[in-house]
Every structure is written in C-alpha cells, then in structure tokens.
C-alpha cells in the first residue's frame, strides 16, 4: 500500500499550538492565509499587520515580516508600508471591533485611496479578547456582556455591513464576504483569499475579504453549535458573495 500525504501544515505557518479557544475559527483563517502565501510563493516579500484583539498574536503563527498595529490602525500602517515597499505583499488582519468600530476611519480611507493592500476582516459579531462585549457587527437581539438583554437597535443601532458599505466606494478592486464555519465555505474562502492576494500582486488595487467566523467561547456555545448558529443567524444578516471584482 502506498501512502501519499495530501494535506499538511503550510510551510509558512509556525509549528506551535495557538492561543485560540477550542473551535475558534481564527485558526482556520490563519491556515488559509499561510496556504495562499505558500502557493503564491510570496513568503519572503509578505508583510502582515496584526490588530489589537484575539488575533494580535498573528505573528506568532505566520512566519512573515510583521507589524503589530495600534487598535484599528492597521490599514494606515499597511498603507505606508506598501507605499514605501511597492514590491512587497502587505495584508492586515483585523477583527470586527478593530476594523468596524475604532478603526472605521482608517479602513474607509485606505479603501477609498485604493491602497494596494489586502485586508482580511474577521467578523464574529463580538469582542473576543476582552471577553464578549457588544461589537459593531453584533446582531440585533444577540446577547453580549455589554448588552445582556440582547442588542437593542434603539440604543445601539444595527450591525454594520462592511462589504456593502465599502462597495459604495469607487477605488476598491475586490470586495467579498466568505465564511470558514464549515468546509464547504472554507474552500470558497481560500479561493477568495487567493484572488485578493493576486489582486494586490497584479497591482489592481485594494482587496477586502470579510470572513464570517465563530466565537464559541463568547457566544456560549459548543463549537459545532456555533457553526450552525453562524449559518442560521449571521448569514442572513451578512450574506456571502462578491461585492466588487477587479476588471
């Protein structure tokens, strides 16, 4: 009997156990990014910009030149790095609190300038690192530690749809929303990430991949239940799809 290995850890991924909670899909998104970096053979010219939040330690898991940005400012850091090093491949990796709350100005303006960077936006509808507070993407009625009775739109407004909002801008080249909740979505998420990095490498402009993710710990669910909850509740609010595509 002959054995052929058909799935293994990507080369640009550092061989350690992550700090993420069991079932947290940050790990899936990290692995996909590393796989794309390997497949495009860009490890030595890739620069990662990590956010503040659960994924602050992104650089402990992906072995590329890395910055750790201040909360919300990753697109500004990435913009400048890319302008000074045009041959590099620069991506930021940001959660919903980082990108859609404190960093709203930076993401909108980086997109509007058409910065040739790739932004990976992890939307799990909650603040993870700080312990489950309401996020700008928390669903109406969804409970969080700072909206214990569920998000009330009269008090806190409605979940922000980043892809739809950024797609109103002229400059961005590629905007898409995917998920990593189940394998069928994850396969498509990797295709989206590949296209996003290629958009940058080909100089076509700003690329943005929103990834719907789970946070079993702060949602108070078992990991498998969280993937089902994401499908049932997040996907109707945040529909998957391509909102802008390079010409």
């Amino acid at each position: 009997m002959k054995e052929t290995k058909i799935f293994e850890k990507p080369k640009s991924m550092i061989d350690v156990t992550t700090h993420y909670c069991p079932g947290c899909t940050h790990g899936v998104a990290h692995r996909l990014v590393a796989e794309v970096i390997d497949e495009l053979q860009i490890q030595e010219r890739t620069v990662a910009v990590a956010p503040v939040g659960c994924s602050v330690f992104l650089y402990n898991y992906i072995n590329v030149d890395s910055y750790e940005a201040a909360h919300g400012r990753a697109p500004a850091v990435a913009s400048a790095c890319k302008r000074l090093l045009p041959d590099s491949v620069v991506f930021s990796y940001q959660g919903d609190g980082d990108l859609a709350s404190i960093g709203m100005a930076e993401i909108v303006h980086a997109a509007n300038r058409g910065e040739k960077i790739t932004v990976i936006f992890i939307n799990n509808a909650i603040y993870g690192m700080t312990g489950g507070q309401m996020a700008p993407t928390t669903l109406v009625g969804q409970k969080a530690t700072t909206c214990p009775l569920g998000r009330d739109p009269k008090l806190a407004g409605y979940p922000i749809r980043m892809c739809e909002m950024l797609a109103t801008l002229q400059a961005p080249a590629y905007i898409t929303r995917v998920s990593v909740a189940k394998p069928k979505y994850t396969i498509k998420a990797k295709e989206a990430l590949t296209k996003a990095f290629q958009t940058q490498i080909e100089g076509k402009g700003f690329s943005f991949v929103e990834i719907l993710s789970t946070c079993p710990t702060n949602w108070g669910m078992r990991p498998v239940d969280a993937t089902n909850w994401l499908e049932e509740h997040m996907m109707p609010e945040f529909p998957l799809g391509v909102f802008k595509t390079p010409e």
Partner: protein
Amino acid sequence: MAKGRVGVNEERCKSCGLCVAACPMKVLRISDKINKKGYRPVEQFKEGCIACRMCAITCPDVVLEVFRLEDDKACNA
C-alpha cells in the same frame, strides 16, 4: 472510492469536535486519551476514510494530516 487515513497531532488537538462533525464517513471521534493541555484528542476509530480532507480543512489547529492510500498494483492499472 479513494481510500485514506487521517494522522493526528494529538498534542495540538483541543477536542473542539469540528472535524468529527465535518467527516462525511463518520470515522472520527473524540478519544479517551488526554493530552498535555488536558484535551481529549480526536482519533480515527475505524476504516472507511475516503481522503476527502474535510476534517483537515475545518480543523482550526492544523491537527490533522490526510493520506491517500493506493494499492501498489493500482499504479500499473
């Protein structure tokens, strides 16, 4: 149908069970063993893996490796 095998890096596993749910052939389960972090790692407990990789694709901790098994004879076929 292809034949396969799943390799488990037991120390990396956090018993989240996503792979167990993702496996179409239901050949994975959470084992009775306990790793250094106190989690019960997943195991392939029976034959029937078809090397579809769904488990590895859904695993957040890069715990799993997937192998395709081929009869040596098949190469000549």
